[in-house]
């Protein structure tokens, strides 16, 4: 994310005021550079120490990550959050490994603007890379400082000391706890660029599966989610939304709602409406009455869904050149041109967004399942007109989000309602139809490919034109919070800016990793859009990998070469080749499809071309009578660098396979000029148990000692592409319009 400079500045000020970090900020090495360096990373945080690893770049103080004291023992902080991927457990493993303590002895806290470092958003498969790397180094450095402290106290050489279970051990049977050793150690210091080394073969936690901390509570009715929070005297709220964006409230019979049993208030500010009641069911009934009696203006019309991919080429936009090299227009002996399309998708969290807020003694506290407590805090503070230090955002788990869903907006709703009910905590949850109609969607996209190949089966040129709406409408001002649009004094969203390469936005993974001498790739970034769109797992990589790997299959067929062989002969990255070869071997490639209506497909990508590697092979068959697609077998090999928790990695990859299959086969937001029709699960069908892949095999390639590359999004693109290749083979024609099989393949228009 490229924030505007004033927003960056505000974030930094907030951070400094918040913690003790303001003290001594100018007295530490690197502080001068911190003020001169205004680089902002892709997650909206500011780089203060460019030479440090991971999120130490943005949060260089050791005590931002680890504190040790008498009262709480060892406390470890992360600015990232648990979104259901298991990162909380994996981060704890990393910290415990390097502190050389048991995970159980650590008090581990996730994002809270009053307590933890600002790591921006938990997004983009960055958590292990950013926070995992920071903890890997910070924990080892803290342990080293404790060793040195004990060595000083005992007058023993530091290299004769060791640590076990939170104790420093010395010669002559001497021992002291970490809490004793920390006396005389100043942890409020910049981390060093170099950390004590530990050979990966000595890891006892990293690389070993540890059961997730949260699962026992989640299978037994524990209060695991923000939806489960209960505060003393907590009230329940529901919002009443306009029929569509741009609708203005004309009138509402306030009395008829406020007379309802249990209703305390109708919150009304311009076109913003919410009901507050003592009991949740009473709030829901009042909300329903509100929908019945409110009258609205028409609002913005929606386009005709059938023309959306044409419309994308006609709306106001900015063009971003991505690649331009060689002679992309030189004629090639072989080639393929096509147009690939994708529809709007929903995050579709199973639990509609929820938040609890409490405005008490001048401070607004918001419990939220946001991906970024700090950006949210700044947005809410601006929206409600409070100084940022009087707003505290605390992350509490919600239902899996898969990107920018309704979490931030629901938090904004709770904040607005709590400000209207001072002194009383308020719980707000969206209804299913509110989630489906108001969450930011994943963009509809159009990709035009022109790929050329020479006579010897080598890629000659790769030209792509891409049309997309934004994938990163994150909270950089109050106007990015949807409820603020409805207020009497509405806020305007900051202008849309795409995430730059190599991470990319709609253009994520648009550049093939294959060896190609000539290429011209452009992104047309559509800035005025019929729908609000933002980040959804893998952003543009879903369609871009689908497009690239469809083309690779087409070119392999033209070259008369096996598709796996064709990929290998155009690819030099050794780790890329390794996942492809590993997958092919595990699958038993080459195999012939068992018969008519069956197909086998292969695909590969390295996420963002800089993160995790994934190759995948898929076998499908199509039920002739119903057009139903059955996934018979999926085999994948992944390389995400040093593996922290093998079972957690497997869980992410398995989940990605199933979710990507659902997106690719079935999903699209249905709408017409009157409105969105996908307001419930019947209007937005996703995969259910009977359509599950019959067999899934995940092969892990560990890279001991290599950087953590992140796992949560690596499979979305490759699974889509392998499915597309398999299904195209099964039905005997190239399928290029997603979703592939919503109504059964042969029933498609």
């Amino acid at each position, binding site marked *: 994310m490229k924030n505007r400079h004033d927003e960056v500045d505000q974030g930094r000020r907030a951070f400094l005021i918040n913690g003790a970090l303001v003290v001594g900020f100018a007295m530490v090495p690197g502080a001068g550079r911190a003020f001169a360096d205004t680089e902002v990373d892709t997650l909206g945080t500011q780089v203060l120490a460019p030479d440090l690893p991971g999120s130490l770049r943005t949060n260089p103080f050791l005590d931002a990550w680890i504190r040790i004291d008498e009262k709480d023992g060892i406390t470890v902080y992360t600015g990232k959050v648990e979104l259901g991927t298991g990162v909380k457990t994996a981060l704890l493993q990393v910290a415990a490994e390097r502190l050389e303590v048991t995970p159980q002895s650590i008090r581990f806290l996730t994002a809270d603007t009053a307590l933890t470092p600002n790591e921006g958003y938990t997004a983009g498969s960055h958590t292990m890379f950013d926070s995992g790397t920071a903890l890997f180094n910070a924990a080892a450095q803290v342990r080293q400082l404790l060793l040195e402290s004990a060595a000083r106290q005992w007058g023993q050489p530091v290299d004769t000391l060791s640590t076990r279970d939170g104790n420093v051990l010395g010669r002559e049977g001497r021992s002291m706890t970490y809490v004793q050793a920390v006396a005389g150690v100043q942890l409020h210091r910049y981390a060093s660029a170099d950390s004590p080394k530990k050979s990966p073969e000595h890891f006892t936690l990293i690389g070993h599966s540890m059961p997730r901390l949260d699962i026992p509570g989640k299978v*037994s009715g524990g209060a*695991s*989610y923000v939806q489960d929070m209960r505060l003393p005297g907590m009230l329940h709220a529901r919002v009443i939304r306009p029929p569509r964006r741009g609708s203005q409230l004309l009138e509402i019979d306030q009395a008829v709602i406020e007379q309802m049993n249990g209703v305390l208030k109708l919150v009304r500010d311009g076109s913003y409406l919410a009901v507050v009641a003592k009991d949740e*069911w*009473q709030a829901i009934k009042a909300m329903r009455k509100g929908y019945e009696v409110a009258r609205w203006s028409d609002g913005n019309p929606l386009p005709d869904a059938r023309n959306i991919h044409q419309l994308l080429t006609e709306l106001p936009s900015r063009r971003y050149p991505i690649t331009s090299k060689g002679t992309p227009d030189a004629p090639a002996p072989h080639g393929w041109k096509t147009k690939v399309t994708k529809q709007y998708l929903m995050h579709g969290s199973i639990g509609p967004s929820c938040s609890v807020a409490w405005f008490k003694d001048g401070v607004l506290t918001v419990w939220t399942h946001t991906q970024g407590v700090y950006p949210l805090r700044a947005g809410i503070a601006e929206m409600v007109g409070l100084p940022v230090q009087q707003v505290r955002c605390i992350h509490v788990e919600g239902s899996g989000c898969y990107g920018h869903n309704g979490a931030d907006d629901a938090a904004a709703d709770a904040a607005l309602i709590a400000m209207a009910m001072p002194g009383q905590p308020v719980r707000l949850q969206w209804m299913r139809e509110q989630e489906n109609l108001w969450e930011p969607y994943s963009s509809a996209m159009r990709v035009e490919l022109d790929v050329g190949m020479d006579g010897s089966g080598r890629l000659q040129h790769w030209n792509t034109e891409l049309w997309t709406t934004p994938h990163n409408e994150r909270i950089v001002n109050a106007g990015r919070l949807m409820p603020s649009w409805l207020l009497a004094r509405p806020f305007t969203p900051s202008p849309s800016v795409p995430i730059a390469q190599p991470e990319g936005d709609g253009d994520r993974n648009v550049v093939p990793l294959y060896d190609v001498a000539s290429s011209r790739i452009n992104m047309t970034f559509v800035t005025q859009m019929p729908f609000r769109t933002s980040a959804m797992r893998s952003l543009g990589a879903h369609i871009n990998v689908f497009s690239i790997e469809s083309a690779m299959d087409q070119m392999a067929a033209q070259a008369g070469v096996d598709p796996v062989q064709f990929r290998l002969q155009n690819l030099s990255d050794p780790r890329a080749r390794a996942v492809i070869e590993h997958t092919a071997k595990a699958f038993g490639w080459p195999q012939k499809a068992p018969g008519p209506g069956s197909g086998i497909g292969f695909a590969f990508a390295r996420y963002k071309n800089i993160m995790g590697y994934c190759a995948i092979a898929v076998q499908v068959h199509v039920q002739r009578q119903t057009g139903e697609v059955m996934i018979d077998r999926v085999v994948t090999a992944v390389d995400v660098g040093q593996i922290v928790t093998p079972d957690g990695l497997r869980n992410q990859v398995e989940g990605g396979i199933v979710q990507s299959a659902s997106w690719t086969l079935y999903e699209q937001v249905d709408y017409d000029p009157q409105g969105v029709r996908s307001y419930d*699960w019947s209007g937005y069908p996703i995969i*259910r*148990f009977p359509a599950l892949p019959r067999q899934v095999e995940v092969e892990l390639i560990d890279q001991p000692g290599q950087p953590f590359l992140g796992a949560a999004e690596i499979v979305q693109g490759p699974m889509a592409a392998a499915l597309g290749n398999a299904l195209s083979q099964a039905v005997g024609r190239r399928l290029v319009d997603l979703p592939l099989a919503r109504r059964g393949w042969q029933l498609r228009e």
Partner: protein
Amino acid sequence: MITLNVNGKDHQLDIDPDMPLLYALRNHLELNGAKYGCGLGQCGACTVMVGDKPVFSCLVPAAAASGKTVRTVEGLGSADKPGPLQAAFIDAQAAQCGYCIAGMIMRAQALIETVPHPSDEQIREHMAPNLCRCGTHMRIFSAIKAVVASGVKA
């Protein structure tokens, strides 16, 4: 006043007679297991058992469950002493965000109690009403199969 028998205990509740069972369980008995997902019986996050049947607690009025036995995931065991299905879900690490999981377990419980040896197809069909968005289905399926294979009466 409505009398509800939940997890073997009678409760007298002074609630609106049209209140769905889901809200009675969550807000008046403070049971977190059943979750609001859609309010339409399309996702199964709110699944509990009434008698020996899995039901969408978001659709059933609490009054309609009066005089019947209601079971929620809390009735199967606790984090410290999980019941067989709960233990199998922990063993298989069959959750990502986990929001759907209590509903999944209750629907699976109803199957295991009524069909001693369900086939793979029967399990998939039986679980079809419940949605998971994280894609944890393969592990949920394995956890259920593990309990079926163990022969333990869940």
